[in-house]
């Protein structure tokens, strides 16, 4: 262990007191085209290994690539949605390196002529807007998937050999690269998360990708550097690879800020390198040193002709863009009657689309917000899942609220229905039946429970008889306990007051 590796992390507040962070995000979006970037192989997720391959994506001699027009269309639409310029003419390039998951020994990518460039996205954090400048969005292809065999952890280090599946090799990727994001200060981790979250929402709205971070269809690389506060310079950066959840994006930035500050605090220099993110322990470890010697010997791809999107085509595609996310948020907030704070929390929790769909499925805006933000956001946080990966659908949430609205369950019982939904026990209706959650509307049973509560608490009963109606709460509690929560508290109160006054 070097002294840098053992240096104690600097607390976050101290980091931002002394340093200005600069962020840079590279996000890879796997497109949802039916076929690969340069060949007609299918792209379905989870197929048997090496069952979706052909001579082109296996890099066999003599095979020739042909560009997937739909992928170019998706690339342009992403660029337009990010307020980018669209190149009038651009080429693919070969990025040469050797790695077994890349059978051609080069990746077909774009180099100095990206199809989209010079854009921006406005990101909102705690009511404050940060403009994230987009440097470029270019087209490339994904690699195969390696399985490392042997060694203790299934990781690359210590592995005896590796097994490769090329189904993913050649799937179209769009790499979206930001310019350095400065000025975020203590909000840098949240800005990074909000950028990726908003970008994901945009990709979903465009319909160009499955946008599932847990399946790797959106992957983020997080660049971070620190500079002395107010210096206005950029420090040496590290690049943390493959950060695959929104929560991890925020954590990785926070961790790297504390780690950089610790090293700079020793008077040492940051090593420019890639870092691996460890989801389980929340730390990064050293990857490959990135030096200027890194030389991919890019050159124009001779097997593909240039892409020259006509301005007419670009304008046609511009007309297909979904509503601008900022305008859409303003519209929804007005329609739903949410306060600024309620809207901010909804967006911040990554629940905007979920709330929207829940309302579309029949729930009131406040009910939809309440379930997603209080109940389900907490459970997502507890389990470490993204809120949209919990396994509860907007339709189910609307169905639970419908049960509450009809008086068949109350909010407290509804929480048990969510337990059931998360445990995969069926529909809300089935869970209410199977768990026996329905509110008891049998007046005889309620009346008996009320009588029992009065008998067990004679002093409380006397207070109510003396006109201290506020004391009824204690009896209501006792009745609800006996009814295992399955009673209408309002009706219980009425019964108590009827009997004692």
């Amino acid at each position, binding site marked *: 262990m070097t002294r840098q590796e053992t240096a104690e992390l600097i607390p976050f507040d101290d980091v931002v007191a002394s340093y200005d962070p600069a962020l840079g995000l590279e996000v890879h979006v796997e497109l949802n*085209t*039916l*076929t690969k970037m340069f*060949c*007609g*192989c*299918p792209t379905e997720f989870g197929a*048997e*290994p*090496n*069952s*979706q*391959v*052909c*001579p082109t*994506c*296996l890099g066999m001699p003599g095979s020739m690539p*042909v*560009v*997937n*027009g*739909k*992928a*170019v269309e998706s690339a342009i639409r992403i660029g337009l949605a990010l307020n980018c310029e669209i190149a009038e*003419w651009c*080429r693919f390039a070969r990025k*040469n*390196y*050797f*790695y*077994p*998951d890349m059978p051609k020994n080069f*990746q077909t990518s774009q180099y100095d002529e990206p199809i989209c460039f010079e854009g921006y996205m406005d990101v909102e954090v705690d009511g404050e807007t940060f403009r994230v400048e987009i440097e470029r969005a270019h087209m490339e292809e994904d690699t195969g998937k*390696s*399985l*490392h*065999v042997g060694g203790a952890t299934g990781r*690359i280090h210590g*592995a*005896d*050999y*590796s*097994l*490769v*599946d*090329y189904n993913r090799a050649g799937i179209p990727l769009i790499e979206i690269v930001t310019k350095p994001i400065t000025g975020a200060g203590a909000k840098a981790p949240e800005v990074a998360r909000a950028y990726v979250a908003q970008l994901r929402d945009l990709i979903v709205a465009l319909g160009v990708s499955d946008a599932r971070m847990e399946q790797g269809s959106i992957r983020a690389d997080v660049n971070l550097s620190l500079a002395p506060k107010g210096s206005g310079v950029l420090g040496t950066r590290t690049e943390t*690879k493959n950060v695959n959840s929104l929560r991890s994006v925020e954590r990785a930035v926070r961790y790297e800020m504390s780690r950089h500050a610790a090293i700079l605090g020793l008077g040492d220099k940051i090593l420019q390198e*890639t870092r691996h993110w460890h989801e389980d322990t929340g730390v990064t470890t050293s*990857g*490959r040193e990135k030096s200027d010697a890194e*030389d991919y*010997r890019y050159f*124009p791809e*001779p097997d*593909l*002709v*240039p*892409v*020259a*999107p006509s301005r007419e085509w670009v304008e046609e595609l511009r007309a297909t863009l979904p509503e601008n996310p900022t305008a859409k948020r303003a519209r929804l907030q007005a329609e739903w009657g949410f306060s600024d704070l309620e809207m901010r929390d909804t967006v911040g929790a990554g629940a905007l689309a979920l709330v929207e769909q829940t309302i579309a499925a029949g729930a009131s805006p406040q009910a939809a917000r309440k379930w997603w933000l209080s109940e389900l956001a907490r459970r997502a946080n507890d389990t470490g899942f993204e809120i949209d990966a919990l396994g509860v659908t907007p339709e189910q949430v609307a169905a639970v609220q419908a049960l509450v609205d009809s008086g068949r369950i109350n909010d407290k019982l509804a929480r048990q229905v969510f337990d059931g939904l998360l445990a995969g026990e069926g529909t809300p209706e089935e869970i209410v039946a199977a768990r026996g959650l329905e509110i008891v509307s049998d007046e005889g049973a309620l009346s008996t429970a009320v009588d029992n509560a009065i008998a067990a608490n004679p002093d409380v009963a006397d207070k109510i008889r003396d006109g201290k109606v506020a004391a009824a709460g204690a009896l209501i509690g006792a009745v609800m306990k006996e009814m295992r929560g399955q009673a209408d508290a309002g009706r219980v109160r009425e019964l108590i007051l009827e009997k004692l006054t």
Partner: protein
Amino acid sequence: MPEISRDEVAHLADLARIDLDDAELDHLAPQLAVILESVASIASVEGLDEVPPTSHPIPVTNVFRDDVVVPGLTAEQALSGAPAREGQRFSVPRILGDEQ
């Protein structure tokens, strides 16, 4: 006059995973220099500034394919030429370098 040093040739060979010994480097470096020199002679053509660099000899753009699945190889066909396999995957030697 373009030049390519012996060290540069050694570096390129390393990037290309070509194992060259000292004698081969001594032999090849001057040869590459001659090739570079020959190509550089194009610079002497008059009016070159007005000629855009050509990466493709045919002036064609936008050759696109429809997003339609075309049958490829079966896993058995794909793996038939593999030096080593395990199940339906290609088996490759231990990877020492890091992922790109």
